């Protein structure tokens, strides 16, 4: 039988998931990772690959990875056909609209300028508010956009709100809750159901 291939995110969330996998007994092979991109755990028939969070959905959707760990923010933005099997309840944060105090979100006929890394999510949210917007797509440091007059508001994820405050911004509206999910694709789930459900029940304990 082939090893089950698990895609883990590099960065902050990956650092939270690895001890979780160790503590729950899923794998003992994640001790000394250093810069390795692939780790095989022959004892548990698992292969771990380390990817940029934004690539995990692609690898799982294409079946290269059988399961992966990724934030709900990426899942909402990418909107790919993957299964969302389990909410790990880590990496918890919120999608918010933020800007300078007293900034009007509801501008009736006027177009609201929104800077964001998540154009799809921002568009859907403001469509539900029936507010016309102009999207300014950025890849980072979104908080600066209102400061330099690039946008009226931003749509971003926030954990504690500290970064927003430090840049003189405040939460104008909360949108949705985000956390890390375990994802899979339909085919992998069919053939590895037992193994995947065992990992989920180990993580639950």
């Amino acid at each position, binding site marked *: 039988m082939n090893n089950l291939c698990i895609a883990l995110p590099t960065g902050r969330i990956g650092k939270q998931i690895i001890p979780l996998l160790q503590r729950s007994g899923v794998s003992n092979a994640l001790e000394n990772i250093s810069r390795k991109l692939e780790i095989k755990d022959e004892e548990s028939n698992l292969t771990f690959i380390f990817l940029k969070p934004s690539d995990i959905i692609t690898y799982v*959707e*294409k*079946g290269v990875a059988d399961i992966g760990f990724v934030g709900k923010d990426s899942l909402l933005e990418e909107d790919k*056909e*993957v*299964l*969302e*099997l*389990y*909410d790990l309840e880590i990496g918890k944060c919120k999608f918010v609209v933020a800007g300078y105090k007293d900034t009007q979100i509801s501008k009736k006929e006027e177009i609201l300028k929104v800077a964001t890394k998540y154009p799809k999510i921002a568009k859907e949210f403001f469509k539900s508010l029936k507010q016309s917007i102009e999207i300014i797509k950025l890849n980072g440091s979104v908080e600066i956009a209102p400061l330099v007059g690039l946008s009226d508001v931003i749509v971003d994820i926030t954990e504690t709100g500290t970064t927003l405050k430090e840049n003189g911004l405040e939460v104008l509206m909360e949108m949705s809750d985000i956390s890390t999910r375990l994802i*899979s*694709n*339909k*085919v992998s*789930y*069919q*053939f590895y159901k037992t193994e995947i459900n065992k990992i989920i029940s180990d993580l639950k304990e």
Partner: protein
Amino acid sequence: MSKLRNEIEYIKVRNKVTLDIENLMSNLDYIKVEPDYFESYDWFLNANTLIRPTSMVKFINPKGEVQLLRPDITTNIIKQLSSYWESDSFYKLYYNATTFRQSKEGITQMRQFGIEQIGDSSFNSEVELLQLINTIFSRFSPNFILSVGNQKVLDNLLSSFSKDKITRIKKAISKRDITTYKELVKDEQDEMLQRLFDLNGDIDSVISLLKNFKESKMIREYSKFLLKLKGSLSEEELSMIDTDLALVSEYDYYCGIVFQGYLRSQSKPILSGGRYDKLTGKFGKEIPAIGVSFDLTSYIKEVTNE
């Protein structure tokens, strides 16, 4: 081997596989049909409310009407047949045709092979189709699984919810997002609803599990359906089947048995189908109909990999 020789070898395999399957269909008295290339956009969306409009290839005809390059064949065939349907007719049809979808990469063409039985409401059609699927796909065993559900039972279970809530529940079910699903149905007492995702596995296990549930009309109906399946198929045919009441299709016209087939080496389901009497009803008269279609290109690719 040179690229050209590779390509010729592939074409030979493709032609042989296609001929073998088409001969199988003819020997079982199925008639080959040719579907239209174009559909009316409004009409198609009305018949298939769960498909994403953005995935369809649209164009404007000389009359200014929005049309589609066919994304699906079944609706097309039923529309053609319904115009000259006579009662007590029974047709066994098949097709081998290209469908078109829009993706970020552009227009994707897929060669789709489909089998339809129209006019028979008895379980014989279900059995014959499942046996055909086994005949065509058993060469890939154990790397082929057929997931079988029941849209009628599932829709009845969800019938007390509003249309909007049903859409959200079905979206959660299709993603196997148990957390969201449980949140949406938390106020319901029905045991089948609460334990929907447990009703998944080989027929014998699920039948056993259902015996532990508090008796209800839906439990009786679903158990009866599973027992009928078990009684109609051989050991080999049953061995490829994984029953799953949480099987949801992107087409909302299914009204009985539904199935999806998976090959281990592929990242998407290769086959889907079910009973769709409700679709024929959209054309005026409800005619019993059941069908299955699969991606012939992926099938041939799998054969060449053998």
